[in-house]
């Protein structure tokens, strides 16, 4: 099924449950983001891109893989917009298009080591599984 | 939340609103263009404590599908204590109606201040949705009074 960019934007809104119109463009999400410098499209821009139906750029963005899913943006957003959910939704769309899981629970024990923060694992599952 | 329109069932809903808070809240919902279904018709009363159980039963008798009473928030009554009496009266009356087998969802009390246009509209949308889910009031209508 082929979707227009606008339909894709609607789908992202639906998956994430985010109302992008609530954003007042204060930038606190980006200001809070620990991965900001790694990102090509920044958290506050995600909101704006989805709002404007500019989805193609998001799907190709490396930001979706750089997001740590730490949810600092979601916690601190004064308007309750939840940019992390948007990023996650875009990521999910990409993963679904690819059609396969990149991380199977069976592989996890081998990857584990003492130093690894739990959050990374949770984040990896969020990113690499449908 | 918007209520889907169904062709067959247009409920009759009577909303008693106190003049000082809820009627003004309804006015604010109006001037803010916050829509709710046209099935709701508002009757202005000075205070929620003016609403006699007789009015509510009469509405049901005449075929109302739901009756809602809106007043100032407890503590904010224009007449200081009116809504406290209304609260007791309506609690007991609604409990009695429930005891007689009238679906409880057909009666409701909601406190809406003059500043709560949003709440007024949301409340009415919810209430109408509830009445839609309960369907037509067949239990309480006095058929002699029915006019077509």
């Amino acid at each position: 099924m082929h979707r227009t960019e606008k339909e894709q934007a609607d789908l992202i809104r639906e998956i994430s449950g985010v109302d992008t119109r609530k954003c007042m463009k204060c930038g606190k999400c980006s200001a809070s983001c620990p991965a900001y410098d790694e990102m090509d499209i920044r958290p506050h821009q995600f909101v704006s891109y989805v709002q404007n139906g500019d989805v193609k750029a998001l799907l190709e963005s490396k930001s979706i893989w750089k997001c740590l899913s730490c949810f600092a943006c979601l916690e601190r957003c004064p308007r309750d917009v939840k940019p992390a959910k948007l990023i996650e939704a875009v990521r999910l769309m990409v993963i679904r298009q690819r059609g396969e899981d990149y991380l199977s629970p069976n592989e996890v024990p081998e990857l584990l080591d003492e130093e690894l923060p739990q959050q990374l694992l949770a984040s990896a599952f969020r990113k690499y599984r449908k | 939340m918007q209520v889907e329109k169904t062709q067959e069932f247009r409920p009759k809903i009577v909303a008693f609103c106190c003049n000082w808070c809820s009627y003004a809240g309804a006015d604010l919902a109006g001037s803010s263009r916050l829509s709710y279904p046209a099935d709701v018709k508002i009757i202005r009363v000075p205070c929620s404590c003016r609403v006699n159980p007789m009015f509510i039963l009469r509405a049901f008798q005449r075929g109302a599908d739901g009756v809602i009473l809106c007043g100032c928030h407890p503590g904010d009554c224009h007449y200081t204590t009116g809504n406290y009496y209304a609260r007791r009266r309506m609690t007991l009356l609604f409990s009695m109606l429930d005891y007689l087998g009238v679906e409880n969802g057909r009666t409701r009390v909601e406190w809406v201040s003059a500043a709560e246009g949003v709440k007024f509209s949301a409340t009415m949308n919810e209430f109408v949705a509830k009445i839609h889910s309960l369907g037509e009031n067949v239990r309480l209508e006095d058929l002699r009074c029915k006019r077509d």
Partner: protein
Amino acid sequence: MQERLVERAKELLADGTVVRVLGWKQGDLGYNPEPAYFNSPEELKDFVYDGFCGANLSKYMIQAGKLEGNTLVFLKPCDTYSFNQLIKEHRVKREKTYIIGVGCKGTLDVEKIKKAGIKGIESISQEGETLKVQTIYGERELPFMDALLERCTVCKGKTHQVYDELIGAQEGEEAGPTGNRFAMVEKLEAMSPKERFAFWQGELSRCIRCNACRNVCPACSCLKCVFDGNQFDSAQKANADTFEEQMFHIIRAFHVAGRCTDCGECSRVCPQGIPLHLLNRKFIKDINTFYGEYQAGEDTDSRAPLTNFTFEDVEPGVVGERGRK
């Protein structure tokens, strides 16, 4: 006991304490004594006091208070609650009333006796736990408990709340059978709305709007009932259809809510046998649950639950929340 009451009544008439006596008079049948005024010692020959004297005489004192001179009234323990409530509402004149609190063993339900197959009743007597009934067909017996009016199986106590003297009773007497008076209300509450509706539809559609419940009720003491007036455009509707009776009974119960002492007279007099007390008891139960235990007629100065409130009262939504449990 009947003799002691008559004797004392004669004394009080003779010494001028009262000019009339309000009591029960032998009816045309053995089981239906009726409330009556006795204006002279001679008239007292028809005075009767037995298990069929269920009638609560409190309400008649509204009228008696308007007559010249003082009135002697006999009140059973539970009748005194009604009298107290009427004092609170300024409907009777305590100072024009001489109250003899009479002892009560429980009053009888003739319908129950009839249902036990006993007919042609002439008189009754009690021996221990057994009720002996003299009938035109001879003496019959049944357990006393089985013949009690429902209200007496949930006796609210044998303490007179107000009196000038006691006969056949003393202070602190133990109550009669004390069952759970809310048992039936609870049973109804546990039903589905549909079942409840069917139950009440069945009961209330038998109503013939004779107004006996209203006329006997000590709390229904309005000079003119709203259902006889035009303020609500509700005067004297016939029972042609579903809702009129419900409306009448709901409003009647609502008007007496917090004032009803649960004397049970409404159900006792209903010619159709509608358990009207179940409406009043629902209000009593709710009032007790929501606003704290309250017994109307226990005192003469407290605020009734519906003319009172607290800042923390439950919200009307509690009805729905309770329903979901």
